[in-house]
């Protein structure tokens, strides 16, 4: 950072379960801090200003736009990014279902989309199609037309079966 700007502040936050300390300028958004300071580049930037939802992360479990959140306002809060949605070696059911259903075309909007979907399922284990549409309406996708995304959320919530359940390579046949 060139000289002459307001000094950085040090903050502590819980990112994907890890307590991390980092120094940010007050003007640094949570998205910039995640992507460029912590190198958690799974959270994406698509529109600069809250119009697309690609930067969605969970703050204390709630889907939030990281591009319109100041990092300094996250002091002491728990942030979950797509890198932290899976716990241990197993992907989250939403991630697995998105892969199975073809919902990951270019994949760029999907980290935010999957976090919105995971938060929905946390609050509502068996959402209706309309509830899925509503919960994802702040996450724009340009590839899929959304159908395979809706299907994937239904698969993740056990309300739909896929036509062919191709096993994940990492589980040696189990999925």
């Amino acid at each position: 950072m060139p000289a002459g700007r307001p000094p950085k502040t040090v903050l502590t936050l819980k990112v994907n379960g890890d307590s991390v300390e980092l120094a940010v300028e007050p003007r640094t958004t949570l998205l910039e801090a995640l992507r460029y300071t912590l190198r958690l580049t799974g959270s994406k930037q698509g529109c600069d200003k809250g119009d697309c939802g690609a930067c969605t992360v969970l703050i204390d479990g709630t889907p939030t736009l990281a591009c319109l959140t100041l990092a300094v306002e996250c002091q002491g809060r728990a942030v979950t990014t797509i890198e932290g949605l899976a716990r241990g070696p197993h992907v989250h059911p939403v991630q697995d279902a998105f892969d199975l259903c073809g919902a990951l075309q270019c994949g760029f909007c999907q980290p935010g989309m999957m976090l919105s979907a995971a938060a929905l399922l946390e609050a509502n284990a068996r959402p209706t199609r309309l509830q899925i549409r509503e919960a994802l309406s702040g996450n724009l996708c340009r590839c899929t037309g959304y159908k395979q995304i809706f299907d994937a959320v239904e698969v993740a919530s056990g309300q739909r079966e896929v036509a062919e359940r191709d096993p994940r390579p990492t589980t040696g046949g189990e999925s």
Partner: protein
Amino acid sequence: MLTLPPFTYHAPATVSEAVALLAEHRGDVKLLAGGTDLLPNMKHRLFTPAHLVGLRSVRGLAEIAEKDGAVRLGPMVSIARLARDPLVEQRLPSLQAAAQAIAGPQLRQMGTLGGNLCLDTRCVFYNQTAFWRLALGYCLKKDGTVCHVVKAGKRCVAAASNDTAPALLTLGARIRVAGPLGTRDVALADFYFADGVRNLGLQEDEVLTGIEVPSPEAGQRSGFQKLRVREAVDYPSLSVAVSSALDAGGNARWVRVAVSALGARPHLVGSLESLTGSKLTSAAVAEIGRIAHRQCHPLTNINIDPAWRRDLIPVLVKRAFETCRLARAS
């Protein structure tokens, strides 16, 4: 990506600390609530304050409660909470409908009621990047002298685009404001002005600390309709809120209608007194629609055909009455 300009951030713990910070940095400071309006505007360099005062740590600004004949709403109550709160559902159905129609899920979680009421007015010639506005040659609201909406216009007509305002106007809300000299109460109807540059009756060193809505009378009902291109995300192209109280015989004790997303001030439709004491038949509602239509003149401040928006005022008024919900006992 679009950057935020540099600033110093303050996190007061009380309203009086916030007011003191605002007074100290007067002329170069902004209040930050949910950030969903201010931060995009700062990325667009519409504001470049040296200081931001964050309200997140101030206690006591997020209550929802009914006492002493009024529903009290804290300004830091999130739009998402308004959209699902059972008390709001029972007592202020039109406000809940308005909250549900705001933006998308994440923005409703982040955005606050206070922030929505204080939303900066919006215009296609204003909500743009610094480069874009340079290429335009700037406008009356920011850095320029010309209005691109009303040629030769002397007063900014940027649109009030907050969905909660018309609902709360028809519910007779009052707001409480804290400043260096103490607190003051003001009717929401007197809070807005028809000047797009500054449409709020709020001084730079004042903080909105509470919204108070009179507890609904027996037979009170309210409804809300929003016109937008997409079913999520979009600001209103037009919004209509209605409220009325019917006596035991089904006659209106009063009727209020507000239309917004037109100009700088949400418009509380006048000349509805003639409906007092009469039944709100479809003919009466059509007459209200005609009155509203006469009083409202959408402009090209929003990039949706103004003639069409105007044509739809009576339709939205009708539908708002049709979808009215009765306020239930708490």
